[in-house]
């Protein structure tokens, strides 16, 4: 009996350790990119085999963007990170020095091979007549959005609402603050990640409108029924640039720098861009963007750099402890 148990232990250990033996990349990403990278990983494995003759498997880890950055800081061996916003990647430099300070200059387009924006998802027929941001602060409209403290997507949502209020006639910091405060009083529940909020809205049927990533909204409509939801594009939104970078200390230790670099570069290729577009991310490549222009409605987009003076400042003013979000949002009111 004892021998059998020991044998079992050895066999299982062997199996587990074997799982780590082949050339392998770990891509630590945020919530809504699951489907994108499932498709992209397959394409890249094929491409790399053709180009170098080597087999590579890409493993995925998904979660709230801030949480994922934290895991990398704490030692999750990510070869590349593909997160929701530059601030979370900055944290990997600030807290753990795993990447250089100038990481964002290493790849084109601020290291964002694709972009996205923030739109609304409403129930079929739009029963509450939601057309733009100012409809979200009407009394009796229930708004679903995740928690900006933990979710990258939620921070984009928050800043998009803030920018809208700011750009109205007579808009000021004070009026924006009041506007966003009013909006968050209409939020009954804050999930910790974007995908959690989508599930709350779509599966549990809570709320009249979901503020969501454009790709997440498309996915919800296509996966779960065109007859149940529709997308509303507001008059103004924010240009969301989810950045990618390789984690230098990890790839150098694992000896995977070359393949990791190629993994990110290939995101900018024709095929990579097409995959992004098919998964409802706005491609950065002009030609591919033109091909999929019908899919993505044109709207006025502001950027974090212009409107909020960059992510570090936006983070400090709005989302740090005691920042405007903490002042605005008091649960249960």
């Amino acid at each position, binding site marked *: 009996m004892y021998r059998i148990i020991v044998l079992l232990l050895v066999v*299982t250990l062997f199996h587990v350790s074997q799982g780590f033996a082949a050339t392998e990349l770990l891509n630590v990403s945020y*919530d809504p990119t699951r*489907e994108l990278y499932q498709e992209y990983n397959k394409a890249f494995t094929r491409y790399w085999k053709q180009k170098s003759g080597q087999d590579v498997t890409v*493993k995925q880890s998904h979660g709230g963007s801030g949480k994922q950055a934290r895991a990398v800081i704490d*030692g999750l061996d990510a070869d590349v990170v593909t997160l929701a916003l530059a601030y979370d990647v900055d944290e990997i430099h600030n807290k753990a020095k795993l990447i250089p300070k100038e990481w964002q200059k290493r790849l084109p387009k601020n290291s964002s091979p694709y972009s996205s924006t923030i739109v609304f998802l409403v129930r079929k027929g739009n029963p509450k007549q939601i057309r733009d941001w100012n409809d979200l602060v009407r009394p009796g409209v229930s708004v679903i959005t995740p928690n900006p403290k933990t979710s990258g997507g939620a921070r984009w949502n928050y800043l998009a609402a803030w920018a809208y209020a700011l750009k109205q006639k007579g808009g000021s910091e004070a009026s924006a603050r009041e506007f966003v405060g009013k909006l968050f009083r209409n939020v009954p529940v804050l999930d910790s990640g974007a*995908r959690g909020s989508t599930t709350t809205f779509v599966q549990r049927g809570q709320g009249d409108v979901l503020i969501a990533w454009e790709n997440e909204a498309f996915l919800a409509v296509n996966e779960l029924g065109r007859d149940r939801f529709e997308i509303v594009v507001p008059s103004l939104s924010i240009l969301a640039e989810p950045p990618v970078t390789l984690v230098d200390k990890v790839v150098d230790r694992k000896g995977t720098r070359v393949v990791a670099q190629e993994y990110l570069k290939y995101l900018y290729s024709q095929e990579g861009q097409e995959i992004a577009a098919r998964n409802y991310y706005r491609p950065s490549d002009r030609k591919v963007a033109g091909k999929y222009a019908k899919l993505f409605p044109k709207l006025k987009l502001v950027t974090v750099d212009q409107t909020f003076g960059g992510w570090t400042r936006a983070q400090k003013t709005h989302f740090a402890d005691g920042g405007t979000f903490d002042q605005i949002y008091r649960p249960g009111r």
Partner: protein
Amino acid sequence: MRSNDMNRSRYPGAFSVQKAGALAEPLAVRLLLVGCTLFFLSLFLLMPLGALFSEALSKGWQEYRAALIEPDALSAMRLTLVTAVFCVPFNLFFGIVASWCTAKFTFPGKSLLVTLIDLPFSVSPVVSGLVYVLVFGLQGWLGPWLQAHDIKIIFAVPGIVLATVFVTFPFVARELIPLMEAQGREEEEAALTLGAGGLQTFFRVTLPNVKWGLLYGVILCNARAMGEFGAVSVVSGHVRGATNTVPLQVEILYNEYNFVAAFAVASLLALLALVSLALKTFTEWKLRQFQKGGA
């Protein structure tokens, strides 16, 4: 039974009065009470269980089977089994040692030790996970040293096992301590005076006396080890096909709108719960019999 007999002989009539009183509630009240119990039972236990299986099988057996043999699901099952295989024997050993020394001996700091054993019960699983991140994480105490020596604890299998061991720490010990205390030391002392050695006494006297309680503790420990979510979620890193246990895999599938697969994998956990429940009831029954026979 025995105490009832005694009561009856000492106070003739007491038993029958009690019996009549207990059953004298009007029929309506009785029905109401039984109805309430059944209602809540079905509302909170049977209905979710039914929903789970009906959702899992909503697209037929083919899909159900496909969800279970999918590579990531299989890897999650393997990891969960590995975790239990390491965790249960460890806590079995630790539980026996801890309960043996606290129940059979007195020493200073004993009550502190017993309190410490209970600690994982009172700590939120998230905290249990985070302490390991703080100790073994790259920014933690041992993290840099571990990385320099290429040892992976956190975001790998060892971290998951450690967190699970912590969470399931008290199950065996908690089960054995009261049992061993109730049995006292007389039998061991008798064995020693008859010339048995320490180990012999332990294996021939102490262990047989607590075997059913021990099994009961092991079943609970195993059920929790396989079902733990919170602590494991913190230390896992959520790498698909590598560091996801079955409960984590369920969450992932659910978040991917893959409801059939999510519920199919969840149904495994539900089946595990049902099997544990059956085993638990059986050992409980054995335990009662054993105690009655021994008393």
